[in-house]
């Protein structure tokens, strides 16, 4: 209810929620919007209309046109929505889990354990994220599972930091002292009383990170270590456009459609998560309220 009232007052945030819902609908109804053909082994293998090297402009058969090698851009964009949700939500969910456990353990045990865990966080923070993820994906092979593992391995640290500092802040609050004086065990205190209150900043961070993890995943595909050839993945399709985007002499915008549709999809997806994250932060953090 509070959320709806906030949206009514903030048209920009409302816009973000609407795009996000639209993407959810596209992902859910992908089989209806772009039905896979019977011979496809997996619906994520984008069908090809021949093997011509040059991209073909939008037509009645391929409404968004085709890439080099004749992958159907419309199909790739529609099913790429599912890929984006899988990677974004998958990476963030696992990262939040790992980060929460490590942050909670550090804040609970303090002392040496905390020192060691936080130094490990520091080390992972000192790794160049994209390059590290590239190496790990290159080692693990192509596909969305290796991408998810790689992005998670180098993306959990900020949750650990936030959870730790939130727990350290909350554990000194009066209601915790009260609960402890009633005889609540430490584990009960952490899981039932502290963590739920520490989760709001995590939720905001996770929402914003979902968009940026999809950005990183498409960047991996763009740099050539992401998904398999022809996989319905926006980054892959943008990578296809790279060789064509400069067009031909005298006709620079000849292949505009190879970038425009997958590019717009990534952009709008990330934008919607950022807008929703922004709205959540505004609502949950009284300091940002107007």
């Amino acid at each position: 209810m509070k959320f709806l009232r906030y949206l009514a007052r903030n048209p920009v945030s409302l816009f973000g929620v609407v795009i996000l819902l639209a993407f959810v609908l596209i992902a859910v109804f992908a089989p209806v919007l772009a039905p896979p053909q019977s011979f496809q082994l997996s619906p994520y293998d984008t069908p090809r209309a021949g093997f011509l090297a040059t991209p073909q402009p939008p037509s009645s058969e391929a409404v968004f046109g085709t890439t080099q090698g004749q992958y159907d851009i419309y199909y790739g964009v529609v099913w790429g929505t599912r890929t984006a949700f899988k990677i974004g939500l998958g990476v963030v969910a696992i990262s939040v889990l790992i980060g929460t456990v490590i942050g909670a353990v550090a804040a609970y045990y303090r002392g040496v354990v905390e020192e060691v865990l936080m130094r490990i966080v520091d080390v992972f923070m000192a790794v160049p994220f994209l390059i590290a993820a590239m190496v790990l994906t290159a080692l693990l092979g192509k596909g969305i599972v290796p991408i998810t593992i790689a992005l998670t391995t180098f993306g959990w640290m900020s949750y650990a930091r936030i959870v730790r500092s939130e727990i350290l802040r909350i554990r000194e609050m009066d209601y915790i002292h009260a609960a402890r004086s009633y005889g609540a065990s430490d584990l009960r205190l952490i899981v039932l009383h502290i963590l739920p209150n520490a989760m709001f900043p995590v939720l905001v961070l996770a929402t914003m990170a979902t968009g940026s993890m999809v950005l990183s995943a498409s960047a991996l595909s763009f740099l050539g270590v992401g998904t398999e050839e022809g996989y319905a993945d926006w980054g892959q399709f943008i990578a296809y456009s790279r060789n064509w985007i400069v067009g031909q002499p005298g006709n620079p915008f000849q292949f505009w459609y190879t970038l425009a549709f997958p590019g717009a999809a990534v952009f709008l997806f990330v934008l919607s998560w950022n807008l929703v994250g922004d709205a959540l932060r505004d609502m949950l953090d009284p300091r940002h309220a107007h």
Partner: protein
Amino acid sequence: MLNYALRRLMMLPIVLFALSLMIFALQMSLSPTQRLAAYAPSPDYLKGGQESIRRMIEQYGLNDPFYIQYGRWIGGILTGNLGWSETARQPVSTALMSLFPATLELVVLAFVPCLLLAVFLGSRAGIYLNRWPDHVIRIFTILGWSFPVYVFGLLMLLIFYSALDWFPPGRLSQWAQTVVSSSDFVRYTGANTVDALLNGNLAIFGDALRHLAAPVITLTYVNVASMTRVMRTSMLETLRQDYVRTARAKGLPRRVVELRHARRNALLPLATIAGMELAVMMGGVVITETIFDYAGLGQFAAKTAANLDFPAVLGFGLYFAVVLVVMNLVVDLIYPLLDPRVKTQ
């Protein structure tokens, strides 16, 4: 303060040690033959066929237990031997050294406008909270923040290269490259713009700028968003302080209060994240350099990572860790100069 700085510096070896362990662990997942490349001082060593490769695996002890291998490997690194990069076809240290000036040039040229824009836009947004300049700036930053670098970069390439033909990709045009490689042109720093000025060659300077423009615009736009947001928040906090109200109450002009009294103090949080941002940019120009075919560390790192060229990846990792720690240290040391209150703590 000095104590704190020293503690920070002592972190560096720990971070580097853990980083080397991590990369070494990744490397150990490859077969001995693949790893042989890391020890071969030049590609000639690898040309001897199966028999010689087996001999060399013996010779370099690539089947030894991992701790022995690690010790040997780290020993080599400590003596300055970072290994051979298959991708660059030269020693890793040589490759890193020769590409560093190019990336530094690009990052510095993008960082300065980024910082100025962030200060300008962020303080404007804070002053005009919830009025139209604030709305415009918010939309501008949230768009920039959501724009994938590669999509924005490709758009720049489409507009400024193929449509307008203003800013070509690469680092220099063919003719300029010929001049720069000739013996008359002294390479003082390796950064094209600086060298051109030192050699008094304005044509080269112009050509280098033409090639830098598109990547600089791209980097600026995608990085200015987060810094503007910090500046806006900080400006809002500062404008609420009592001393700002006092300044207004004693009749100082609005602009003087906003720009001289409030904005100065609002710069402090920006300094912290600007240092981090600069460090991240030094390691994060991977995509930008790849799109614009700009031969720098980022493009090199992307190529080596895709090729699993481990000596080069480790070299880049060490470089990045050092940049990060040094930038943090610089920010910590500059902070008391910006804010005298920090010293007393």
